[in-house]
């Protein structure tokens, strides 16, 4: 009696642990599905566990649980009190409704109440399974593993934060696994459950689990090398490329978390016809957060413009004589205006309203009623500004001090910015005397100091790491966001007002006709660069990203006075343009043939990866479980075969193999009879010797004998089954 009480207590503790583990399952489900009534579900779990623990008759336990579920539904989903007369009709009508929905295959119509019922029944089943694992199998490992996997998956792929849950589950699960293991050991050793002896084993296990968990909990941890696998997985599985709204590909809206690899996407966004090559500007951002860019005081001032009106920006505009047109045909109509440098205005066919945010200089295209409008095409008028070198050379650093407070937001830097970034900025600019030269020094810094352009190797900063600092000092590899953000931060560190610009790179130039050239701009051309304020010249664009060429027109009117500078700057500017275009062309040609295949493969990768993983898991499981399933297959196969010598012969060898799998391998010099004796001793039977005697006769003798094959088959099956259990 005392023993059974102890056993009952043991089981009760086990169930308590199970209860807490199940609670960790329930929390994220409730949280993610936005389901209320958490405590009612908990009560149901508790109720089921208690019923199972007390070993209440299944019928009674079923009635109790079913009663609870009914009460639950009536209480939650019916407005009236449970014990009122309206409950029954409510339940009946729910039942009718859902049955109709299910029978007609219209699963979307199933009501929440019915879903709750199904969920509760699921919990019911789960607890039955757990009961089986705990009290029959005495092995909770699968459940434990699944729980950890479940929480880890949700933590990774959803908003749910499983940090605390995973610690709790691992500690509880390890303890549970340990206790059950001890129980299994006891059972195998056929030992009487001496509580003192048992605790002698359990206590060290408990202590070590708790000790290890505590140490692990308080140990310092490095940040994840792969902070967010979601974009990567999406990239690999080809779920990218619808352009707008994607964080890393195409033109995105949210830049508060920069970094991470991105996949190319050559979806055409628009085709521009223009005389000049343009950097297609969309908006600027001014506030750096150590992780990315946001806009300060968003929506401060919005100014509406009609089509054809002059739109003012903070940028320089060239002389009115040089006014030109650029025609944009949108393949993917965007809700915002694509601007050029020297932008004057826009004319569109529809009577659209252009709403400019003065803060970001983003121009949204809207209807007069305020709703968003997607224009298929529009024409931009612009006059490219020409900067005078003389003026640029006059931009002495002292002039920066005269700038007013409106520039403060372009000098903003987060307090957490590591000091070494500021130090680096000062080192880069120390030899330059003018603001323009300082900016150019920063722009050129990336070209010579071991930086690399790569879309896929770009890192994501860890929680307490600065995006710019990581790029400048640790990784030195990344794409436009890394380069442009770093340049802005460096410029600001040096006291030069700068802002981050988003838009599109000039795109793929086509053939020229009538002095106009077509530029095809794809999602791959989504780009970011830098605008810095040069006193006297205003906001100028700069291009720090390796492999890209800027687009500033500079009038080298100083040529006579300072010939060296002309030589220095000029080759940097124009000759590179054709070079780059050339490079782009060759690249396109070489990838063209593979493109189709690659795109096709990319689309399939998701399926492949899943299939491969499934296949791998299946293969591994099958391999490790081969002791169990192979013999079963054989038993099934031999049941069908005729009872004769040849099938007996092969079945005997199958048995030898199976015995080898469980560690009873016939040694080279061992005779069948000696082996059979060993097997029978190990398996506590005498069937192997019976089989072997017949087999010996068959192999070494020369006379056919009268053999009861049916009986042999029974012996054989018995042995095979012995090897499995």
């Amino acid at each position, binding site marked *: 009696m005392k023993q059974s009480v102890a056993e009952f207590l043991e089981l009760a503790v086990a169930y308590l642990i199970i209860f807490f583990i199940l609670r960790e399952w329930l929390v994220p489900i409730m949280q993610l599905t936005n389901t209320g009534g958490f405590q009612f579900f908990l009560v149901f779990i508790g109720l089921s566990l208690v019923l199972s623990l007390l070993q209440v008759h299944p019928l009674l336990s079923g009635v109790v649980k079913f009663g609870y579920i009914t009460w639950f539904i009536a209480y939650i989903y019916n407005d009236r009190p449970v014990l009122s007369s309206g409950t029954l009709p409510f339940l009946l009508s729910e039942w009718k409704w859902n049955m109709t929905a299910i029978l007609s295959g219209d699963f979307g119509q199933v009501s929440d109440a019915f879903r709750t019922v199904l969920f509760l029944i699921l919990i019911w089943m789960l607890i039955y399974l757990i009961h089986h694992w705990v009290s029959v199998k005495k092995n909770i490992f699968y459940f434990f593993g699944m729980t950890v996997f479940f929480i880890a998956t949700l933590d990774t792929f959803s908003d749910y934060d499983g940090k605390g849950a995973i610690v709790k589950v691992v500690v509880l699960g390890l303890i549970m696994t340990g206790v059950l293991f001890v129980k299994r050991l006891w059972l195998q050793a056929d030992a009487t459950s001496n509580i003192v002896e048992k605790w002698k084993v359990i206590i060290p296990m408990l202590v070590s689990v708790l000790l290890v968990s505590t140490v692990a909990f308080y140990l310092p941890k490095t940040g994840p090398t792969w902070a967010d696998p979601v974009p990567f997985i999406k990239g690999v599985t080809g779920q990218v490329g619808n352009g707008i709204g994607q964080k890393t590909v195409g033109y995105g809206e949210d830049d508060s978390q920069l970094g991470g690899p991105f996949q190319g996407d050559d979806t055409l966004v628009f085709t521009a016809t223009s005389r000049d090559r343009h950097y297609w500007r969309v908006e600027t951002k001014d506030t750096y957060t150590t992780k990315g860019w946001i806009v300060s005081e968003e929506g401060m001032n919005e100014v509406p413009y009609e089509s054809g009106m002059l739109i003012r920006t903070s940028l320089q505009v060239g002389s009115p004589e040089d006014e030109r047109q650029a025609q944009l045909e949108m393949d993917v109509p965007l809700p915002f205006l694509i601007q050029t440098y020297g932008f004057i205005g826009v004319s569109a066919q529809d009577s659209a309203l252009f709403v400019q945010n003065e803060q970001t200089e983003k121009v949204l295209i809207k209807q007069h009623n305020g709703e968003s409008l997607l224009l298929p095409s529009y024409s931009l008028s612009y006059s490219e500004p020409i900067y005078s070198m003389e003026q640029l050379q006059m931009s002495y650093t002292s002039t920066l001090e005269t700038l007013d407070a409106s520039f403060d937001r372009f000098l903003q830097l987060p307090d957490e910015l590591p000091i070494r970034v500021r130090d680096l900025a000062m080192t880069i600019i120390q030899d330059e005397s003018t603001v323009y030269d300082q900016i150019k020094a920063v722009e050129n810094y990336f070209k010579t100091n071991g930086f690399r352009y790569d879309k896929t190797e770009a890192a994501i900063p860890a929680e307490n790491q600065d995006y710019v600092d990581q790029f400048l000092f640790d990784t030195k590899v990344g794409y436009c966001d890394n380069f442009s953000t770093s340049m802005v931060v460096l410029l600001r560190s040096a006291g030069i007002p700068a802002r981050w610009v988003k838009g599109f790179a000039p795109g793929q130039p086509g053939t020229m006709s009538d002095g106009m050239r077509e530029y095809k701009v794809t999602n791959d051309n989504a780009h970011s660069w830098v605008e810095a304020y040069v006193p006297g010249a205003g906001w100028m664009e700069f291009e720090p990203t390796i492999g890209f060429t800027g687009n500033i027109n500079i009038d080298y009117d100083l040529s006579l006075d300072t010939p060296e500078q002309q030589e220095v700057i000029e080759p940097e500017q124009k000759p590179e343009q054709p070079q780059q275009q050339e490079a782009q062309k060759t690249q396109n040609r070489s990838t063209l043939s593979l493109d189709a295949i690659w795109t096709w493969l990319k689309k399939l990768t998701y399926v492949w990866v899943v299939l491969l993983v499934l296949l791998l898991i299946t293969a591994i499981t099958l391999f490790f479980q081969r002791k169990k399933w192979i013999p079963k297959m054989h038993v099934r196969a031999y049941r069908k075969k005729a009872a004769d010598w040849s099938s007996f012969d092969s079945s005997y060898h199958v048995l*030898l193999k199976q015995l080898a799998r469980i560690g009873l391998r016939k*040694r080279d010099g061992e*005779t069948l009879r000696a082996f059979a004796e060993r097997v029978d001793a190990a398996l506590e039977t005498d069937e192997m010797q019976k089989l072997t005697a017949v087999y010996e006769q068959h192999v*070494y003798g020369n*006379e056919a004998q009268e053999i009861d094959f049916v009986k042999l088959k029974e012996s054989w099956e018995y042995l095979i089954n012995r090897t499995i259990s």
Partner: protein
Amino acid sequence: MNSQIKNVLENIEKVIIGKREVAELSIVALLARGHVLLEDVPGVGKTMMVRSLAKSFDAQFKRIQFTPDLLPSDVVGISIYNPKTMEFEFRPGPIMGDVVLADEINRTSPKTQSALLEAMEETSVTIDGNTLAINQPFFVMATQNPIEHEGTYPLPEAQLDRFLLKIKMGYPSRGEEVEILRRAENGKPIEQIKSVLSVAQLIELQELVQGVYVEDSVKSYMVELASQTREHNYVHLGVSPRATIALMKASQAYAFMKGRSYVTPDDVQYLVPFVFSHRLVLKPDARYDHVTADEILERIIAQTPVPTKRFAEQ
């Protein structure tokens, strides 16, 4: 177990206590028409074993006590001039019996030893140019004191090849020895046993043994074991093909005795030490490393794969 042989064994056990294995091996040699070399110190019951065996078959028992001055004619017989008939008359020696105990064979001169061994091999004796066949059953059980003892002429290795089996008798266990004493109190037990099998029946059994089936895979297993002895590092001279034949014949007899009509590798493994150990000539290294022939054979058996399929299926 063959029932007739079982009777014989039970008969022997009335006299010899706890030497079941020796008795069985002796019968194996007898059934295989081979001879046995019993090696052990005096007084462990060698003579009694042979005598009870002979008595069980109702066979003629002869005993030759080998001494250094024993002559070949004392073994095979001699022609004596008969004045009555004016002719030389052949007086058969003790070798002409059915079951012959050649006691302490290593005490006599090599000349006499070879006369015995020749008779064993040829189952005939030649005297004064006349060749006389020895009648079946003809079974010689030679005993030999361990070689270390003084005043002996050790048998040459080639001669040992003539013995199908070499058996060691060994001391009885304490309980067995107490039982021996108990029986010795009541006079001689050998007098009390009766024959259970006639000579004619024995010859019949010998013929049946030859019909015991040896599957080719088992034959090749025997050959493999024999050739392993020839390749072994410690062995100077491995066993001869005659030994392989001996192994097969002994295996057949053993299988027959066990009541089977076919030889299994178990039979072979069991018999290998008795058939092979006295035929191996070891290198001096073996002695330095204290490795005995039995140990070498044990290793060979453990290493050689046992056939588990018919020869044709391999």
